[in-house]
């Protein structure tokens, strides 16, 4: 019932935004900005670049909102706009250097450690990844893109996308082991 009410309210808000109602646009921004900045921050190396992507993303969102026919797809559509804006900024900065692996051994990862992580820990872990690893990991694991889609978006081969993901997982495993041992050491003290 509550979810249905929220959906109706969002649909009304979207309609008002389409009419150019500035108060509604501000409200739509305020309702979603913190979550969208969370997405941008995972892709961009610092909060300044993340806020810049957020700003550009919302400008595009309001300018293209009249093209959104189904308001139930708004959340998905908004996330995609933010991700696309981050990818555009990264392409402009040309910080992505991508290499291909020769071995495709997938490392064993400990999901129980992940459950203990805070939002700050997640950001630190993702920040520590090189831009190429971080981008493919974000797109595949968190956003749910397929390797083919990632390859098209980043203008790389499917194998390069798979390689970047495996290397990202290896790096994360190393970081998680280090983080876990630090946590255990701190608990022992």
């Amino acid at each position: 019932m509550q979810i249905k009410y929220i959906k109706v309210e969002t649909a009304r808000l979207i309609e008002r935004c389409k009419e150019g109602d500035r108060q509604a646009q501000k409200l739509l921004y305020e309702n979603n900005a913190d979550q969208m900045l969370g997405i941008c921050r995972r892709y961009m190396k610092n909060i300044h670049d993340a806020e810049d992507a957020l700003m550009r993303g919302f400008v595009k969102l309001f300018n293209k909102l009249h093209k959104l026919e189904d308001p139930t797809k708004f959340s998905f559509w908004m996330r995609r706009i933010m991700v696309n804006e981050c990818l555009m900024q990264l392409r402009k900065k040309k910080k992505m250097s991508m290499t291909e692996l020769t071995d495709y051994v997938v490392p064993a990862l400990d999901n129980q450690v992940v459950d203990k992580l805070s939002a700050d820990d997640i950001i630190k872990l993702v920040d520590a990844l090189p831009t190429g690893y971080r981008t493919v990991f974000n797109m595949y694991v968190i956003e749910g893109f397929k390797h083919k889609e990632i390859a098209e978006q980043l203008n790389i081969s499917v194998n390069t996308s798979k390689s970047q993901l495996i290397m990202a997982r290896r790096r994360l495993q190393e970081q998680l082991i280090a983080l876990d041992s630090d946590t255990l050491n701190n608990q022992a003290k």
Partner: protein
Amino acid sequence: MSSSNKFDSAFRKRAREIKIKPSPGVWDQIDQNISGRRKRTSLYTIIGIAASLLLLVGFFGLFQLEKTQNEVVATNYTVDEIVDANTSAYSNALMKWVNTSKEVGHAYRSEE
């Protein structure tokens, strides 16, 4: 479920929960960059309000004019009526006086 899938699922869940409050200046920048659309919309709104006000003033003016004309007609009618009534009263009084004078004249002549 493989270890990668379990890891992915756990990481996805935690990562999607991340929320960061943007600095207040971000909205101001968005506001400036979509201002063209707002100005156009506001202009339409202003024109709409102005047109409605003009219509309202026009209707009110028309109503007032009609009301004033009716009052003038009503006032004229009343004055005419009063004049008519006064004229009738004067005529009646005059006729009564003439008749009375005649009667008095007859009576005087009879006595003679």
